[in-house]
């Protein structure tokens, strides 16, 4: 070769080498960039593509009564399930699908939809598994093809239930009869269980199902996640303390194949149960109250309070519902039934009722505090009181009557006169001081804020009319625009019992420290002797001559006040029976308010006849449980009675 040509050739070769080096450098740079700089990003992408996270909700905490008895717990819900991602199941799906296709071809038929055929083959395979389970446990369940497809689309990693709610014996039969490697497995999830069914249904509340809350600090947040449904409190304590009761969600991270089916687990965190809550409810008292309302199939509400701690011992509202019917979810039938019976509302804290005669106690206190009457003031009752052109009736002709007897006999005329002498401003002020115009701040959700203590200004702004003496007379006996809740009336009874104004009742059991931290009650402002006169009047109410004879309990002195209030409706009046009271009289421990709604319009519904017996059920249960509070003097008196 010519040396010039060689040189020329070599220079071209150098150019080629140079280009080769540049291209190789580019290639290696790219490789370097991809392998080292972008490695983390690739690893993440690979992880996101190949890993899936499954979240399992932690069981909710239990609700316990004040003695530690379980009011709400979790019950295992056992199901027979099939893991659709299992190799065995996948292979069964595939084989069945292939045999169906082959059959079609052999018959010379055209396949309309391959996807539909796939759905059908899956249903057939699961039905064969289900038939075996049906044979073992004697059921006759069938699979739903569209449900299987929906499950595969939404939650392919979660097990597909073919039989729900297995009984203990069905669970045992399947465990022993199904081989360990069977595609059908026994699976457990949890549901709320209410051992006392409808007892304290409104106070305890129920839960609903919701998407599981995913916290940002949980591992695998970047991964595609499949979650079982979680629960949230929809009412009552379940709602109020939802955050405390919620369990800690468990998580599993799985490696999946390209079809998204599980291959092997990488990481597992167990779910944890939420915290238990001890309530102030005493289930013995609660059941005693419920039994009373059950007996007469009454509607209404009852609240019993521990006067010393302001803890709610019993709270019921009727009509009610079996809480177990709401678990694990509320079916349309159950929802329609509860709605039709108007049983959703907790009347103890949301029901607004005129207080009726128990309000006479506030009229008396207002009159006493305003100096318009004293404990010995006597008025003449001639059966009615004339104000202007209107006659305000009394239940009887009581003649000359003093405060104690007026309370005992529930004399309307006496309190018309006291109210008129005291004036609406003092009456309103006293009712407001007794906190009848504001929510009690009980630790339950949805307490009404619509309770009303009328005043001159309220009437003027509402109707544009001035306040008339007739309005005062009505208000004096707890009628008119006044509305309160049964819980407020129980608080009123507690306040009168101790000559102090109590607020903020609680449904949680209080520790000794919590009790010490409570803000002290305000004084009611009655001198001891005058307070005693009111209590004496209330004591006489629950005596053989009083209006609440049905609330008499042997061995205990009970002070009370009955009442009958009317709700005016277009079709007629609906009467309400009230009883409020406390016991024992000398050392009050328990306060109670019972309300029973009239069952028919224009039906006479006296508090002594209908509400007092309801209170007695609870009081009897209380003193049976705490005999140390029995009135020893009364016990001795009863013991010393000589029989004729």
């Amino acid at each position, binding site marked *: 070769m010519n040396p010039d040509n060689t040189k020329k050739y070599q220079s071209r070769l150098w150019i080629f080498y140079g280009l080769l080096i540049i291209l190789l450098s580019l290639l290696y740079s790219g490789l370097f960039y991809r392998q080292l700089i972008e490695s983390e990003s690739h690893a993440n992408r690979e992880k996101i593509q190949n890993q899936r996270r499954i979240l399992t909700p932690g*069981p909710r905490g239990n609700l316990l009564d004040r003695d530690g008895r379980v009011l709400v717990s979790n019950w295992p819900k056992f199901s027979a399930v099939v893991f659709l991602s299992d190799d065995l199941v996948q292979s069964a799906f595939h084989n069945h699908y292939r045999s169906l296709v082959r059959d079609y071809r052999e018959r010379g038929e055209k396949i309309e939809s391959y996807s539909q055929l796939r759905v059908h083959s899956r249903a057939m395979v699961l039905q064969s598994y289900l038939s075996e389970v049906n044979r073992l446990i004697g059921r006759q369940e069938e699979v739903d093809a569209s449900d299987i497809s929906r499950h595969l689309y939404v939650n392919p990693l979660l097990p597909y239930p073919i039989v729900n709610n297995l009984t*203990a014996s069905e669970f*045992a039969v399947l465990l*022993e009869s199904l081989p360990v490697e069977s595609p059908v497995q026994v699976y457990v*999830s*949890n549901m709320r269980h209410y051992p006392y069914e409808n007892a304290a249904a409104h106070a305890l509340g129920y839960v609903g199902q919701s998407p599981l809350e995913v916290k940002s600090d949980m591992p695998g947040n970047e991964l595609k996640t499949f979650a079982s449904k979680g629960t949230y409190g929809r009412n009552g304590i379940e709602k109020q303390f939802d955050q405390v009761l919620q369990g800690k969600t468990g998580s599993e991270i799985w490696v999946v194949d390209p079809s998204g089916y599980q291959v092997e687990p990488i990481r*597992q965190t167990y779910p944890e149960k939420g915290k238990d809550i001890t309530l102030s409810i005493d289930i013995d008292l609660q059941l005693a109250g419920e039994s009373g309302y059950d007996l007469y199939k009454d509607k209404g509400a009852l609240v019993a309070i521990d006067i010393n701690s302001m803890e709610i011992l019993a709270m019921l509202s009727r009509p009610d519902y079996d809480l177990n019917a709401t678990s694990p979810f509320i079916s349309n039938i159950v929802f329609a039934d509860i709605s039709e019976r108007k049983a959703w509302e907790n009347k103890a804290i949301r029901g607004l009722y005129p207080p009726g005669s128990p309000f006479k106690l506030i009229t008396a206190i207002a009159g006493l505090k305003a100096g318009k009457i004293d404990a010995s003031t006597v008025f003449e009752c001639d059966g009615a009181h004339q104000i202007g052109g209107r006659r305000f009736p009394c239940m009887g002709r009581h003649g000359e009557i003093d405060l104690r007897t007026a309370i005992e006999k529930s004399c309307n005329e006496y309190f018309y006169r006291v109210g008129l002498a005291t004036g609406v401003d003092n009456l309103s002020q006293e009712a407001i001081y007794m906190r009848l115009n504001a929510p009690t701040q009980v630790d339950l959700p949805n307490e009404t804020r619509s309770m009303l203590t009328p005043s001159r200004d309220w009437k003027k702004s509402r109707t544009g009319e001035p306040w008339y003496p007739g309005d005062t007379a009505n208000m004096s006996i707890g009628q008119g625009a006044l509305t309160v809740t049964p819980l407020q009336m129980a608080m009123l009874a507690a306040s009168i019992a101790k000559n102090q104004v109590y607020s903020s009742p609680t449904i949680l059991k209080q520790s000794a420290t919590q009790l010490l931290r409570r803000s002290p009650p305000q004084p009611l402002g009655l001198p001891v002797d005058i307070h005693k006169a009111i209590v004496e009047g209330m004591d006489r109410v629950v005596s053989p001559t009083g209006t609440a004879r049905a609330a008499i309990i042997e061995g205990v002195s009970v002070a009370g006040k009955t009442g009958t209030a009317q709700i005016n409706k277009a079709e007629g009046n609906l009467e309400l029976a009230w009883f409020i009271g406390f016991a024992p009289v000398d050392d009050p421990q328990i306060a109670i308010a019972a309300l029973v709604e009239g069952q028919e319009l224009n039906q006479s519904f006296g508090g002594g006849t209908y509400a007092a017996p309801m209170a007695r059920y609870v009081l009897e249960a209380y003193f049976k449980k705490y005999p140390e509070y029995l009135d020893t003097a009364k016990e001795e008196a009863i013991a010393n009675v000589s029989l004729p």
Partner: protein
Amino acid sequence: MLKKRLFNKKPFAVLIAVAIFWIFVPFIVKSTLRSAFYEFQAPISASASYVRELQNFWAARSKSKSELYEAGKDLAHLNATYELMILENQAMREEISRLESLLGLPSRPEYKYEIARVVTREFNSWWHQLEIRKGSLHGIPMGAPVVFAGGVVGRISEVHQYTSTVELLSNNHLRMAVIIEGDNRPMSFRGAGFRLFRSPIGIAQYVPTDIAVDSSNPPRILTSGMGGVFPAGLHIGHLVSLKPGSSGMFQDGEIRLEPRLSNLTEVAVLISLDEGTAQ
């Protein structure tokens, strides 16, 4: 050279050919061959066990008179104890029948016992099983529960004419519903093999969260009787430890099984009298 090389590969070629041939052999032929293998193997295993028993017999013959006298005394003791227990059992059975008729309860399932000698014991990481010297000719049904003086042994997993295979409690393919003594909530039991130099173990699932383990007096695990295979109240083992379960609602536990499971020589197969065969 090439010829020699090919000659050397001949065994591999034969092996591959046999493997391919085996793949295409019909299932029924394979199944028959497998059964036949067991049936031919059974007399050999049974003969071996008879020989072992003969050995034991001659070993016993070599014992001194005083040793035999002591053994005879112990045996008399045991016989007396068993006589007493038989009487007690009879009295209890009558009491149970009386209570059942009084309460209108359905009578408990009745079983007959088929005593069988253990031919072989196989313990490996794949399975734990016993071969017993009774088979379909002796009325042994598939799936029947097998027991011994210390409680449950397992269940029959294969039945041949003269022998049967018993899947042991410690086998990880054996699962049953069990209860804790004094508590009627069913839990799941599954065999979990042997811990090195220790007793066989099992795993309990769905143990209620209110159950705790006192190591000095561990809870006793019994058959629940709800599953329809095992009668209720048979001893399984003791619950020795607990840990939180994956559902958060239950605990998982470890059950220590009877150490005697690994050296059984004789067992009893329970044959249901109600159905003739267990499920």
